[in-house]
Every structure is written in C-alpha cells, then in structure tokens.
C-alpha cells in the first residue's frame, strides 16, 4: 500500500522538477514543508487539548465547563485565541526588550523541537535520529532557558523569584527524568525512538511491563518538568502572583500557555512511545495508518492522567517538592538503573516463561527476562515505599517529642 504522505511528497518533488527547480533546493523546500506540517499538527492538537482539558476538569469538579461557543463549547479555544490577539501587548519600561520578546518564542520552540523525533506511525516521523532520546533531553534545556530569560528580562521581583524557583525545580527533576529515560534505552539497546517502539511489539513486550517503576518515575518527573499541578510552584498565584510570566500579556502570554499545554501532551506522547509501545498494536503490520490511532490513543490516555491529577491534587509544598526529588525519585532511579542491566544480563538467555495464544498475530509471550525485570521493579518500588513509610513514621515521632517552634519569631532583644 502506498503511503499517502510519501506519495504527496513524491508528487510535490515531481512538480518542482517540472518547473526546473534544482533537486537540492526542492528537497530543502520539502523539508521546510514537513517542519511546518509537524509544527502545525502539534499546535492544532494543543488548541483542541485546551478545550478537552477544560471540559474534563469541569466534569471532574462537577461543573459544566465551556458550553456557549459552538457545539459543546468546541469553538471556545478559537474565541480565547481571538481575545488574546486583541489584548494590548505590553512591555515593561525597564524590561530587557530583546530577551523579553525572545523568551515566549523559545518556550514554544523548545517543546516543538521534541516533535521532530516523534514517530507517529512506522513511516511517519520527522527524522530518524540515532540519539533521539538524548536529543529530547537536550532540547528540554531550552525550556529552562526560556523561563529564566522571561523571569529576568521582565525586571520584576515576582518574575525573578518565579524563574529561580522554576530553574531549581526543572534542573532537579531533570536528574530522575534522564535516569528513567535510560531504562527503555537499556532495554531496547538503542537511543533511537523508532527502534525503541519497534522493540515493543506485543502487549507483554511493552516496556511498562518490564519497567513499570521507570515509567512511573518518568511520568512524575516529566509532570514536574512541565510545571503542572501538583508541581506548579513556578507560578504559584498565592505566593509569587504568576511567576515568571507575570509581565506578559496578550499573545506572548498565550505562547507560554500554549507551550505548557503542548508540553503536557508531549510528555503523554513520550510516555506512550517509550513505555507503551507508541504506534504498535494489532493489525498495524497490514495497515500502518492504524499506528496513528494507537499512538494518539495511548498519548491521550496518559494525557488524561495529567489532567486528572491537575484537577484533583493540591499544590505540593516547596520543600516537599525538593525532598520528593532528591530523597525519593533520584535514589530509586539510581538503584533501578544499576539493577536493570544486571538483571537483564543474567536473564538474557533464559528464554520464554510462557506463551498464550501462540501463532496468533501479536503472540503473547512472557520471557524470563521480562518477568525478572518486572520482579526487580516491584521489589525496588515496594522497598522504597517501605523505607519512606518508616522514615516518615520516625520523623513524626521525633516531631512529637520535640514540638516544632513557630518558624517566624521576633529576635530575642526585641521580644523582651
């Protein structure tokens, strides 16, 4: 079966050949077209997602949500975008103009760059990069830079505080994020996302079966990396007003929001690709286009969990945020990263543990390797939970013995 997108590309190339464009130039134009198509798809999904998120958050909180513009309020995001465009574009007088204006663009671009390596189906992808996982980690650092630039160039104390908070949070959570990213890389023996997806052929071969703990760590630290509830300390309204984007208005503010929404969906897509098998699914060999349905379905399933968390969980306290990262996520990720290759090495030749429905497409086979890895994950996870429970119990007892004093108290000389 001819792939529609490939056919379209070939047709465009033949069209360019007819008007005597040099092949090198037409190839570059085709690349640029591809870039704009992927970027547009990502942004259009984001527009739809803002509506979806408001509807689902409303449903979870027993409200109706947007219901005035269009059927079921479907045109609400369009109305919001138009409203945002008509707002006055303000720039603080003492702002650093260039950095102030580049920051929102960088915030969106840092997320859009990830979409360059995402395979939508087995044949639709921006580029096959053999260091794709590392690339995803790399472009994340532009997001940190965008936040810091926005916070600093606004010349506003709240913005700067928000940016400092953001950097401390994003840099911290990058550690467990990268460590848990390495687990699927180890299991697939490749940093290429297409290869990682290809290795997860059937249900029991998905890396979420072999490494559920890594998937959980990846998910938690990516939610923190986006800065969404419960990790939205960088824009905590009650403490620092709106954080790093307090001075932004109109469309520049909208770009920060779009970047955040897009990033949330992107982590859904990444979790789907790295741990849930991406475009893999039944009958995908015959009809590659089905892969898009599976990929989007899995991405939206993970995205739904982030929306669920956002509309039900309160904001985490700042010291808890750092403690969760450095005392729980990082040690667990390190232990997991050390145990995964060891278990993998000693069980690689043990073969199949059981196979159900042999001969059927997408044969369900559980290998000794997967079972051992799953067991390792469970042991590490339960062990970590046990240590946390004991520690928190001990801390509670210690606190009861020595009741906490008030944090803010007058100096001794003035108190007298």
């Amino acid at each position, binding site marked *: 079966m001819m792939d529609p997108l490939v056919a379209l590309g070939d047709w465009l190339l033949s069209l360019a050949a007819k008007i005597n464009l040099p092949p090198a130039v037409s190839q570059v134009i085709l690349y640029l077209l591809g870039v704009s198509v992927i970027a547009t798809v990502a942004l259009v999904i984001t527009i739809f997602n803002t509506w979806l998120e408001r509807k689902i958050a409303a449903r979870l909180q027993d409200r109706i949500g947007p219901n005035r513009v269009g059927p079921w309020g479907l045109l609400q995001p369009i109305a919001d975008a138009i409203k945002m465009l008509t707002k006055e574009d303000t720039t603080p007088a003492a702002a650093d103009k260039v950095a102030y204006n580049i920051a929102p663009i960088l915030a969106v671009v840092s997320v859009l760059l990830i979409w360059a390596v995402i395979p939508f189906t087995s044949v639709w992808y921006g580029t096959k990069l053999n260091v794709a996982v590392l690339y995803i*980690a790399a472009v994340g650092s532009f997001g940190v830079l965008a936040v810091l*630039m926005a916070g600093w160039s606004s010349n506003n104390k709240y913005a700067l505080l928000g940016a400092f908070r953001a950097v401390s949070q994003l840099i911290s959570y990058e550690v467990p994020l990268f460590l848990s990213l390495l687990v699927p890389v180890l299991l697939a023996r490749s940093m290429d996302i297409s290869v990682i997806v290809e290795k997860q052929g059937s249900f029991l071969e998905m890396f979420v079966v072999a490494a559920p703990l890594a998937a959980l760590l990846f998910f938690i630290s990516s939610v923190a990396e986006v800065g969404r509830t419960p990790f939205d300390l960088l824009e905590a309204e009650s403490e620092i007003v709106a954080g790093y984007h307090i001075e932004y208005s109109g469309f520049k503010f909208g770009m920060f929001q779009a970047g955040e929404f897009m990033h949330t969906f992107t982590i859904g897509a990444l979790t789907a690709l790295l741990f849930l098998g991406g475009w893999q699914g039944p009958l995908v060999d015959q009809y590659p286009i089905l892969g898009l349905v599976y990929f989007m379905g899995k991405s939206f399933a993970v995205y739904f969990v982030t929306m669920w968390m956002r509309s039900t969980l309160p904001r985490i306290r700042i010291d808890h945020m750092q403690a969760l990262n450095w005392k729980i996520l990082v040690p667990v990720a390190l232990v997991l990263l050390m145990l995964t290759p060891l278990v993998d090495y000693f069980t690689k030749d043990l073969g199949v543990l059981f196979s159900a429905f042999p001969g059927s497409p997408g044969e369900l086979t559980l290998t000794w390797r997967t079972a051992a890895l799953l067991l390792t994950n469970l042991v590490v996870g339960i062990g970590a939970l046990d240590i946390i429970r004991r520690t928190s119990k001990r801390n509670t007892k210690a606190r009861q013995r020595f009741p906490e004093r008030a944090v803010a108290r007058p100096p001794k000389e003035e108190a007298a």
Partner: protein
Amino acid sequence: MTPMQLIFIFTAVASTVAAIMVVTRRNMVHAALFLVMTLFGVAVAFVLLEAPFLAVVQVVVYIGAIAILMIFAVMLTRNVTDDESGHPFNANVRLALLSAVFVFSLLVVTLGGWAQFSAIAPFANTSGAVAQLGEALAAADGYVLAFEVASMLLLGALVGAIFVVWPRQAEND
C-alpha cells in the same frame, strides 16, 4: 552554493559574532545569553559534520549549564539589569589580543599547508558511531582507564564540594 553551505556560513558568522559579544558585553546576563548562542552554533557545526551525538551532548552539557551560570550571575552581582559600569577588560588585553592573533595565524598557516584541508571528506556512516563510542569507552583495550580516572576525579570534586559546605557541629553552636 548548496543549502548546507548557506547554513554553515550563517551559523559560522552568527556564532563568531556572538562569541565576540560574550567578551565585550558589560551586562553579565547578556554575555551568558550570547554564550548560549555561540555554543549552539558549535552544536549546529557538529550536526553539519555528521556528528549528531556530539551536537546533542554539546547542547545538554553546555546550554543546560548556562541556566545555572545565569542564576549565579544574577545572584552574585549587584543590580545586573542596568549594570553598565566598570571595564570589561583588564591590563592584559593587548597581550591577549596578540596571542590570539598569533594562534589564529599559526592555525591558518598550518592548515593552509595541509593538502587534505580543502578535500571533501567521504560521506560518513554514523549509524553505529554511538555504539562504537560506548564500546571504546568501556572496553579494556579502549579508553576505560581514562574514563574511570575522569569519573573518579569528578566524584572527588563532588565529595569535596559537599565537604566544604557541610555544616560543622562546633561552628553552629
């Protein structure tokens, strides 16, 4: 002129100009931002040289660290937003300029006399390069000793940093 050459010329000019801006800007945050631009230009050069792994590592290590550098620039200096005071250069500027020109002309002379300099390198197959790099770093007959020594050094630096900031009981009371 191919599109690749256009991209190369653009990034080369941009990263050189940005590098000059890094040392001439008086505003520290601006200097840090121009440093990002320079390092990103180097990453693009790596991509053009068919070394995606090096390019990505360049971005991870350097641009990721710049955010921290900016934080320190903002926190450790006074009122950086409009700090235009002070001289960006010290007394050694002439000597530094002279040695820079000397090293650059040495490079031009040496590379200009090299017959391979203008030859076009064969199209490299980089698909297995990362695996080869990993094996070379971990193999006993490769660079495992250098790799381990470097990691021990970094570990020592980490432990030392923690030791320096560790609160001592006697000083606290």
